[in-house]
């Protein structure tokens, strides 16, 4: 009697003879349970939160490059790039094959005209798409590090000293025994600069380093990846002009050259050159003043 009463209250009776429509989700997501311990809670706080253990203030002083761009350059660049009745210039896109051919039905699309990669559309200038310097990346590849792995410490230290940012290791992607290159081995360091670190590096480069390099004739005219990013390279003997290294030369017996890429939001290399030129970077074959 009692059992029958209880059965009246249970909800299982409705599902008698049926089955669960909810898919089981357990064992689909791998979870490292040890990482869920309450002592690791503070690791999950984002680093820009002052509660985080890795918090580091970023706005520590006036950024005079950003200020100059915002107050003086931005309006001038918009005026300079303005064209009456400008229209969208379509870039080269992937092309279709002959639609009547049955053989082309599931083929990959043809490469675009020109240099073989799709290019971006260029929109008329407006207040929202004024070219801007978004970042500077330094890439240091040390060929000798394949033979002498201890050089990796020197490469990281050099970049950290110059930029004030902790570098990330660079690893080789290919195997080539004639070059003593092995896949996955460390062979240099790289740094991505944004914000005040970027401004500080740009100022040091344009005001203290480049003017002292005797062979420097400006950023080469051919430099650029057609997408608004301009690169230059520095030789090991140029690197010693960085003041952070110049005053401690005996601590840096091994110096390495590296590549500097100025990443801009400009759609074309010409627009990027105009922007970088206005930020104080000299260019080869620039018109005389």
């Amino acid at each position: 009697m009692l059992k029958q009463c209880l059965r009246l209250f249970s909800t299982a009776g409705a599902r008698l003879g049926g089955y669960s429509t909810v898919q089981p989700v357990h064992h689909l997501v791998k979870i490292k349970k040890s990482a869920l311990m309450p002592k690791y809670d503070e690791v999950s706080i984002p680093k820009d939160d002052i509660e985080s253990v890795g918090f580091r203030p970023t706005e520590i002083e006036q950024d005079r490059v950003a200020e100059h761009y915002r107050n003086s350059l931005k309006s001038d660049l918009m005026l300079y790039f303005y064209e009456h009745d400008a229209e969208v210039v379509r870039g080269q896109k992937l092309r279709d094959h002959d639609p009547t051919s049955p053989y082309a039905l599931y083929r990959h699309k043809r490469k675009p005209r020109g240099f073989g990669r799709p290019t971006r559309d260029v929109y008329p200038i407006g207040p929202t798409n004024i070219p801007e310097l978004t970042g500077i990346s330094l890439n240091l590849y040390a060929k000798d590090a394949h033979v002498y792995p201890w050089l990796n410490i020197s490469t990281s230290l050099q970049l950290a000293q110059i930029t004030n940012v902790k570098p990330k290791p660079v690893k080789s992607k290919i195997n080539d025994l004639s070059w003593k290159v092995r896949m996955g081995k460390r062979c240099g360091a790289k740094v991505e600069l944004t914000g005040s670190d970027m401004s500080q590096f740009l100022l040091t480069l344009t005001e203290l380093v480049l003017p002292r390099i005797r062979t420097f004739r400006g950023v080469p005219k051919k430099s650029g990846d057609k997408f608004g990013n301009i690169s230059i390279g520095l030789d090991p003997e140029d690197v010693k002009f960085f003041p952070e290294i110049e005053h401690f030369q005996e601590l840096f017996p091994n110096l390495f050259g590296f590549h500097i890429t100025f990443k801009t939001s400009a759609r074309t290399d010409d627009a990027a050159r105009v922007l970088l030129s206005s930020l104080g970077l000299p260019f080869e074959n620039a018109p005389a003043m």
Partner: protein
Amino acid sequence: MLRFTLRAPTFTRALPLLKKYPVSTHRSCRTPKPTMFHKQVSRLYSTGSVQLLAKILSTLLLLRPPVITADLPKFESQYYNYQKELWKRLMWTFPKWFYFREGTLAEQRFRELNKNPVHNNPNMEFIGGRPIIKHQRDLRFKQVLRLPKPYLEGEEGEVEGLESDKPVVPNSRTTPADASNDTTSLERKLARTLYLVISEDQGKLWAFPNFSCENTPLHKVAEEGLYGLGGTEINYFNVSPTPCHVQTSDKGKEFFIKLRILSGSFVAQNKNTTFKWLTSEELGEHLSKNYYEDIKHLMSAV
């Protein structure tokens, strides 16, 4: 890490690539497509119209960009100060084992100048809190370093008058022109953008220089007019031949051509001409109210 004194990028280097373009090949000189404006203009030329053609004027907006960093409001400077102190407290410990190798004379002098913090003695009670010592640094406080003077070969003892000994004193942000309120000087208000205004009637009416156009491009008229007004001792940079604003008034249509002064100075060629270099707020006091309201958006707030 070395940090450098704040200074706005020198304006002489601004846009060097764009400075002198061959005018004949510039995009503005290509044959333009017929637009609404052209259609209207050609209609005005037609004999059927009675309406007179509006006079076209080229107005010169000559500006001197800021030379030094902007003046910060009190709150912002306090904010930066707070963040900087926080940054110093969170900074890594100075790696003295790298910069001052053990056993060297420099290391000995560094040790003399920088005493070790109080040892965290487990048998002692600390009233101000127990010190957290890592690598001979108390992690509770920022690390204050005193560096020994560099040793110079062939010189003994203390050397007086070394350049590195002198404290770095930044130049004054105000100039004699600010003190005497000399509005004709280009060296006034270094942190602000200054605009040139002139007066032909001894300072009763102030206006931007403007010139009438007769079959000459607007930017050419503005550039030649500038040399005529202020002499040829001006090194300027024309931002673009495209005007940045058009203002319709009784005189006609004023097209604003934006120029930046890079070096040199404006020396009035005519006896009756007086000129001033003014900030955007001061322009409001010198120009008529309605006119200033119309062109206010062209002025830089800094």
